[in-house]
């Protein structure tokens, strides 16, 4: 299956390599560099490359390329999914997945990779099991380790792998028993020039943070489960119960995890929280253009819209901008041609507006197309689909846990065409 893994940064340095079978020389990456050269943008590098003897499957995460070398037929999604799992694990261990972090913890990362794959086939990918074998670094532990010469490798051998519930480690103990659930919904929408919605849908995810002692068995039920159209679960969720009763019954992993992803059925009309009035014009002569954007609230369900931000990828010809916002700040990166207008809170009384002129490269033809606006926003304490958690019950343990549910609505891929 997965033969070798190379971690490559954006400038093309290989800073970590791991081989699960015989060693494969670094030169194999040259094919990748060639493709990278051609693609210009790192996102555009094809994920699967064919070379005379190997296949290269790459993912791009956190400004890093995870390049795996494959020799025989394998489901490409299998590899891609696994590479993302590696990135997730690193993020889980060290808080972020970046070159510096990996370089600082190179031994731990190497050990993790050793445990995650055996002969190229996934062995232990549950973070709970891995954490039992290789303890994640904490500041306290690193101080203690340097003083005592202790280690961060678990001296206990993992038992989780042997149990029926591999995602949970045994013997968890907390003084404060807490279970928090964040219901996060994202609106994906395409709004066309005239303001009509071309396409809109709601994707939701329930992120959980569960710190409960022992082996709790939780049941989460919704007031209106019929809203959920398509769902995918963490392996801990008992699918049969969901099928039969529409409740989530599960023994949770310890710590943070994604309980479920869902898609709200498309019959429901999606409320679009804001409207955008924009006009972007480029003039045929004089190599300049005008920009005027106003944002106002549309269907916000009485909540305030926060974290409002507009991102515009300008045409290549736009050299600089001269824009004045009535609210927030506006920056333009002339290298990447990205205009960012960070508005913040939306005040319905005084609508934020951005206007001014764009100056263009002289002599360049008028751009064919107006750039589209990407909107970012956040509404606290609201699940835009109307989904509500009705109750959380715990079985199997005696203590009373502290329970909390939070709702957030965000803009996902929210795009306004102009």
């Amino acid at each position, binding site marked *: 299956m997965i033969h070798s893994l190379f971690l490559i940064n954006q400038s093309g340095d290989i*800073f970590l390599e791991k081989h699960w079978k015989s060693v494969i020389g670094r030169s194999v990456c040259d094919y990748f560099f060639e493709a990278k050269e051609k693609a210009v943008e790192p996102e555009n590098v*094809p994920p699967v490359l064919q070379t005379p003897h190997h296949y290269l499957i790459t993912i791009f995460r956190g400004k890093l390329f995870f390049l795996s070398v494959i020799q025989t*037929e394998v489901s490409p999604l299998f590899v891609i999914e696994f590479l993302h799992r590696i990135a997730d694990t690193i993020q889980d261990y060290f808080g972020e997945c970046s070159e510096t972090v990996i370089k600082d913890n190179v031994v731990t*990362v*190497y050990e993790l990779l050793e445990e995650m794959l055996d002969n190229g086939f996934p062995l232990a990918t549950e973070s709970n099991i891995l954490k039992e074998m290789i303890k994640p670094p904490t500041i306290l532990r690193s101080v203690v380790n340097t003083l005592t010469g202790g280690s961060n*490798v678990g001296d206990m051998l993992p038992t989780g792998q042997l149990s029926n519930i591999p995602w949970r480690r045994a013997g968890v103990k907390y003084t404060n028993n807490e279970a928090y659930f964040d219901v996060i919904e994202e609106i994906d929408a395409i709004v066309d020039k005239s303001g009509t919605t071309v396409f809109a849908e709601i994707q939701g995810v329930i992120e959980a943070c569960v710190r409960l002692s022992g082996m709790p068995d939780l049941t989460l039920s919704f007031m209106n489960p019929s809203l959920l159209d398509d769902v995918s679960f*963490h392996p801990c969720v008992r699918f049969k119960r969901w099928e*039969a009763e529409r409740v989530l019954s599960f023994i949770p992993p310890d710590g943070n995890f994604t309980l479920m992803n869902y898609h709200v059925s498309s019959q429901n009309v999606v409320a679009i929280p804001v409207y955008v009035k924009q006009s972007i014009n480029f003039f045929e002569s004089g190599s300049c253009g005008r920009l005027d954007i106003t944002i106002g609230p549309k269907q916000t369900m009485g909540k305030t819209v926060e974290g409002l931000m507009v991102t515009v990828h300008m045409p290549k010809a736009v050299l600089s901008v001269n824009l004045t916002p009535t609210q927030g700040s506006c920056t333009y990166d002339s290298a990447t041609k990205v205009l960012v207008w960070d508005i913040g809170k939306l005040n319905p009384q005084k609508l934020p507006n951005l206007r001014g002129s764009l100056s263009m490269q002289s002599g360049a033809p008028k751009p064919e197309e107006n750039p589209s606006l990407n909107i970012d926003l956040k509404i606290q304490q609201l699940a835009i689909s109307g989904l509500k958690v009705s109750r959380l019950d715990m*079985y199997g343990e*005696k203590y009373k846990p502290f329970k909390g549910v939070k709702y957030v609505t965000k803009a996902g891929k929210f795009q306004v065409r102009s």
Partner: protein
Amino acid sequence: MLDSNKDSLKLEAMKRIVAMIARGKNASDLFPAVVKNVACKNIEVKKLVYVYLVRYAEEQQDLALLSISTFQRGLKDPNQLIRASALRVLSSIRVTIIVPIMMLAIKEAASDMSPYVRKTAAHAIPKLYSLDPEQKDQLIEVIEKLLADKTTLVAGSVVMAFEEVCPERIDLIHKNYRKLCNLLIDVEEWGQVVIINMLTRYARTQFLNPNINESLLEEGGSGEKTFYGSDDEEDEDEEEKEKKAETAAMAKRKPYVMDPDHRLLLRNTKPLLQSRNAAVVMAVAQLYFHLAPKAEVGVIAKALVRLLRSHSEVQYVVLQNVATMTIKRRGMFEPYLKSFYIRSTDPTQIKVLKLEVLTNLANETNISTILREFQTYIKSMDKDFVAATIQAIGRCATNIGEVRDTCLNGLVQLLSNRDELVVAESVVVIKKLLQMQPEKHSDIIKHMAKLTDNIQVPMARASILWLIGEYCEHVPKIAPDVLRKMAKSFTNEEDIVKLQIINLAAKLYLTNSKQTKLLTQYVLNLAKYDQNYDIRDRARFIRQLIVPTEKSGALSKYAKKLFLALKPAPVLESPFKDRDHFQLGSLSHLLNAKAGGYQELPDWPEAAPDPSVRNVEVKESVPEWTKCSSREKRKEKKVEKPFYSDSEGESGPTESADSESDSGSGSESASGSEVSASGSESEESEEGSESEEEEQKDKKKTKKELKKPVQESESEQSSEEEERKHARKSKISKSESESESDEEDESESESSESESEDSESEAEVKKKKKAAESKPPCKPVKKENKKEKKEISLLDLDDFDPTPSPQVTPVNSFLSSSLVTDLEGLSLSDSVLAPATMAPSSALKSYELLHRITGEGLQVEFCFSRQPFSPDANMVAVQMHFTNNASADAKSLHMEDVKLQSGMRVREFPEIELLPAGETATAVMGIDFCDSTQAANFQLCTQTRKFFVSIQPPVGELMRPVFLTENEFKKEQGQLMGMNEITEKLTLDATCRNEHTIVQRVTAAANLSRVPCGSDKECSPPVPPPDHPVYRFAGRTVTSGSLVLVTVVTREEGAAQLTVNCEKMVIGTMLVKDILLALTQ
């Protein structure tokens, strides 16, 4: 530092070395120093040394051997995790000399007690195989052994090994097929992917194509095909149709029925579409695409669309597959059209793929929306994407005739676009479109001719020239002019343009030689001295062909025909058209080229191979099935009930007959999974056949209700139901013919019933008798019961089911239960056979062995008397009850030809010499079921006839009660933890929340005895609050004497938890299911 005594220093040194390895630096010089530390006590140092060893052992083979003994010692360690890690490292060291050691270690580990070690062994197999392929035969043996493993931990890894070592040995899968299907949902996600892919291949070799007669049903499909304008395709379709018609004709003769195992696979993989792992979802999707009947494939669309929210790499792969699927099954994704709309932030490759999908999805109804979308895309800044969009518009235009003109106009407008790439692409596409109907569009050709002044992209110029040349008759005035211009710039053109200029010249020469003769000669002369030999050759060739000389032969006569032949319009096809011959989701599919190690997806077989190869001894297959599908099965049962509620004893046999004929196997030993698999199908078929009968029944019911109080008929019904269930269970493995004839007789008798009042009432009495007999508490005392019936008019009370149903009034139930006890008392004094002690509160269910109609008047029922079978303590006592309903006497009842699974034994009942008409008799036989629920088959013989019958015990009857104190119970329970413990949560039925009913129901379901509640509650770890009592039951299996411990912990609102501890997991799982059923219904 490595030589230091301090672990901390060693650790520091090792860390540095490993960091070097990670960065790709060579650290092989340190090998001797490192290998010394392999026996180090510090676990972290040890781990790092292992890491080092695995990396460099290949290069330093001799030195690596020094470490082997450490691992060999590790293999014998009592700790399973150390054994596993030793095996893991040992097998990772790629040193050929140790192959025999590895082989030995793998073999040993494959039969290790710990499933984790076995898993590691499975991992080690491909390692050894790649090191030394000559070990293949031995490794296959190990794989075969591990494939039989029942734990989920091992399943994924061993299938992986199977795929790497011997994917061609599909025969190894047969016996494990059902098990793998059933385990699938509990296997870890990576294993699931591998197993699903393997099973897809397997299913392709073993089952018939479910869409074999789709052409009969395929109105929608043929409708779609008319959209394609191109002739080619239709020809193909027709061919295909012919083929299909052939197969359909075949199918008509023998209608396609899905193999229950095929159905099992589809059903068990479906929940995995909800997995969080994209690879698993994709694997299931491809399985459905390749294996499922057309109508069912649709379920995967939603899941695949969900994956489009994932990382862009995942999107890339998924879209590739969706693109392939949309070509074959367009309808599936049509509702999700908008999910494929393109955002400006998508990477180019994703955009292009989405475009592909949108194009494939386009049809008359949605084309306007799609074209509007395309219009926005054309303005994109991403020029590659714009070019792809133009291509897509072209394809839409060719496929959908209605919009061809609109598209063409749109594309012509694009010709005035400022971006040259866009224009060039448009020209190319327009050229293709025009070829379809050139007559109408001479003005477009003129317009394009003008463009030659501006467009510089060679491909576009070449296309225009070709167009003008081809249709020079439509533009007779412009063409020579264009040629003139081109001749001027000939030397500066690109090669492909030059070739087209020559081409144009030649064509014009042929059609309009007056005006162009000189020009052509000029162009040919220029070409003659061109640098490119292709062009020189072409010029020479054309000159010979078109300019008539003496030498030139016959060919020049045909020059006109050669050049101006009508050319077929090109077909704009999706690049994904033929990709589906690769297994979807595979690397090969993605690359559209065969990757190394790709296993071809086989074609469906013409005729299904023998399905009985998958039959496993019931002992193995049943428990898994119950574990995974118990819920589903129960649901099915519930659904089925209404159908059965009135028809007497018919549904059971019907179903079993159906399922048997479905599978076409005719195998007598219909294992549990087969039945459940076919359940849904037979349901449907029953619905139809029974509807008429049900009408009749309704009539009958109303009549009954006139005679009796309402609640009686209600309860009667339920008791009948129960009886039917039993009948079904016991009959399930009866031969087809028997059950079918049975059914017919039954319906006949029923129809006669509804006709004549008299006979009806008679039949009803009979029926009631039977109902009464079937009623559990009365069972052991049938004789007395019946006698009394004639005298006492309490007959109706007997019809009450002992399990209280809401409608039953308390008085009645009280009465009936008191009657039961009375009758019990009677039996105690009367019965010769029943020994002195009775299981106190347990009601005995009776099962039908031989129906009175099948048995030509002889009716035989049996029940498990729950008495120790005195001649042999390892046998379960089965009490047989014979009733002779015939008019003639039955003589010499005995059994013959006992067929048993290995290990089982039977002690026959003594021959009954004479059973006079109308009389009943009882006999006891003993069966040693070997602690399995396999059926004992034998023939029941009278003087004149032989009947095939079988007795299959419910798991609860395979044990005998033992008395334990609470302390003993807990102690034993403590030793039966882990794998031997099965826990289920349940909600108690509303009628079953008090102590009495719980105890009664558990003991009715299984032959166990209650463990008295001790006073030592305070020392039990989870102290239950006093109002939530704990019930404990204990027993031993009859044959092996393994302990069976059952605990029911109740909580508020009827919630409860059921725990079964049993050394025999098979028994445990089945018992859980049975008790669960007893407590929740």
